């Protein structure tokens, strides 16, 4: 178990600034997910913890100990790579055993550990096979066993599920959550998939262009976003954002919309036409055109048809306001401005 702290960390590749002056604390024993679009610096951050892609400047601490310049092998971490990075010329057993042998773990203990962790990942029958003869999911399990057998203080995972098919991914996701519950070690998991982030994380660190946009639990990130970026990154479809006459922005989640044929008085209500309808099963997705603005709505009722005239209604408690820079304007501390914004939003209604 360990806490990891980044202090004023920068990373440049040649002249490209990937990460600048980043401060972040990854809590001990938590399942932390670094999420963001490709190139946002999340993998760079993970490689810094592993020690295989050193920071250009700044410091990284593990339980207060400065590990900025510590060799990867001496960091008490294990990593699972996106392409598994298992040793193709070694058998499953040799793959799991390699790190233990290098650490001069006695043979009897090695055997016991291999047996234990092969059983955990369900590879007991495949120990003498070469990875080339196994499926993608099984190879991923080798990588997991190889990491687990070292009993690291920190578990790093770089998009470990992205090469698996959808069904296996869902299954492995719950297995990883179970694994974290069992091991209770610090997990740092990198993904670009917000669903993976939301479903697995204790703490989500959402990144964009090398900066941290928000660091919070999945519930907070979804219900209380700090900025437009977070509001639109998390949630499918993303939050509807529209420009207000005063230059600020108004946002509301597609799930919070109520559709009706008759106008609803009060709060935010606009008249519109159904452009498209996607039936997803338990929910239906509508794209609605309201005199120039298009909103996405996700509701239970599948009975609205394309081309129909409908009313979009969002209650005041589900409205979010952001300033021109995209930063959230919260009610607390800004009561007068917030009341003003609510009034402006209400004024945008065209019923």
């Amino acid at each position: 178990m360990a806490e990891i702290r980044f202090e004023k960390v920068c990373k440049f590749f040649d002249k490209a600034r990937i990460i600048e002056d980043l401060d972040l604390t990854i809590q001990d024993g938590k399942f932390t997910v670094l999420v963001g679009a490709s190139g946002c610096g999340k993998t760079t951050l993970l490689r810094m913890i592993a020690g295989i892609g050193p920071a250009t400047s700044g410091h990284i601490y593990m339980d207060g100990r400065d590990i900025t310049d510590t060799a990867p092998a001496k960091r008490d971490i294990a990593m699972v790579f996106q392409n598994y990075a298992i040793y193709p010329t070694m058998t499953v057993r040799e793959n799991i055993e390699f790190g233990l042998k290098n650490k001069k773990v006695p043979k009897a203990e090695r055997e016991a550990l291999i047996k234990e962790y092969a059983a955990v990942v369900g590879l007991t029958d495949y120990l003498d096979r070469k990875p080339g003869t196994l499926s993608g999911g099984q190879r991923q399990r080798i990588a997991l066993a190889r990491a687990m057998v070292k009993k690291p203080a920190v578990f790093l995972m770089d998009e470990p599920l992205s090469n698996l098919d959808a069904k296996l991914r869902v299954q492995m996701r719950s297995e990883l959550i179970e694994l974290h519950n069992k091991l209770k070690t610090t997990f740092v998991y990198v993904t670009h998939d917000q669903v993976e982030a939301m479903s697995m994380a204790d703490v989500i660190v959402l990144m964009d262009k090398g900066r941290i946009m928000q660091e919070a639990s999945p519930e907070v990130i979804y219900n209380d976003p700090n900025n437009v970026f977070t509001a639109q990154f998390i949630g499918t479809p993303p939050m509807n954002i529209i420009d207000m006459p005063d230059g600020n922005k108004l946002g509301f989640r597609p799930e919070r919309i109520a559709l009706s044929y008759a106008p609803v008085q009060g709060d935010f209500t606009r008249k519109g036409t159904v452009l498209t309808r996607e039936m997803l099963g338990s929910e239906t997705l509508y794209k609605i055109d309201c005199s120039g603005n298009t909103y996405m709505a996700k509701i239970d009722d599948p009975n609205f048809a394309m081309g129909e005239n409908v009313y979009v209604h969002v209650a005041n408690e589900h409205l979010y306001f952001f300033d021109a820079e995209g930063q959230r304007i919260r009610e607390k501390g800004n009561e007068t401005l917030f009341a003003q914004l609510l009034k402006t939003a209400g004024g945008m209604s065209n019923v």
Partner: protein
Amino acid sequence: MSDLTLNTKPARRLTRKSVANNLFSWALVLPAILFLAVFTFYPLVNLIQLSLYRGNITNPYKTFRGIENYIDILVKRPQFMTTLKNTALYVVMYVPICLSLSLIFSVWLQKARKMNNFAQTCFFAPHLVATISSAFMWSWIFSPESSGIANGLIRLFGFNTHNWLGSSATAMVCVMIMNTWASIGHHALIFLSALKSIPGEVYEAAELDSSSSIKTFFKITLPMLSPQIFLMLITMTTNSFKIFESVRQMTGGGPGISTKTVCMFIYDNAFETNNTLGLAGAASIVLTIILMLITLLDFKGLEKKVHYQ
């Protein structure tokens, strides 16, 4: 009876179809078979026939000698066995040295340094020079006079000049140095492309697994290069058994016949001395059999250790 006719008809139709299929398949492989027959099998049969006669280029089949030619080269005349020994010695020196040096150079060139592109070109350039020209150049380097670079260098360090190519102790080593110099870039390039195909993540995983760089090389890099090493081992062995131009230019087989190789023996008996074409033929057959055996042994002994992706 009617049942029988009903049963055989479709069967016959199938047979006709399969014959047509067969003919079509044969038509497709025919060009390759013809090519092999004309340029490989016929010359081989011809060679075997040649090895059973006494004759020369203008009249190869003067008198039939049976296996006398084979008895001559293997038992009666010791020269062939000496050339075989010389060639084997060369192969035993050249293959491991050239193979390991190519490997070391490729590992060195693998690191992304600015000078490595330049170094790569430098190593590869000798491969583009004709062997005969390289041999001529190295003859000059190993010249017995003090104008030779080798002698100039050792004189600089206060040693006496040495007749490199004129001494049976060093002549073959000089030929080996020349050939290593000429081919190392080519082999290193093949290893380099294989090295570059190993994903970097595997090395990072090894680093996280506390593997030392030497252990990583022997446990990860080397096994992953095994297909290339195996291929190179076979081609290098067979090619160096057939060494000819460089020895002929640099030492002429001398001093005495201390550097004479099997191919020089074949050449001399075929074109330089009269009525010994049959001996050359017999020597060629023996060489072919030896190379086949070595390749077979390589496959039997090593193929299981080769890791194919």
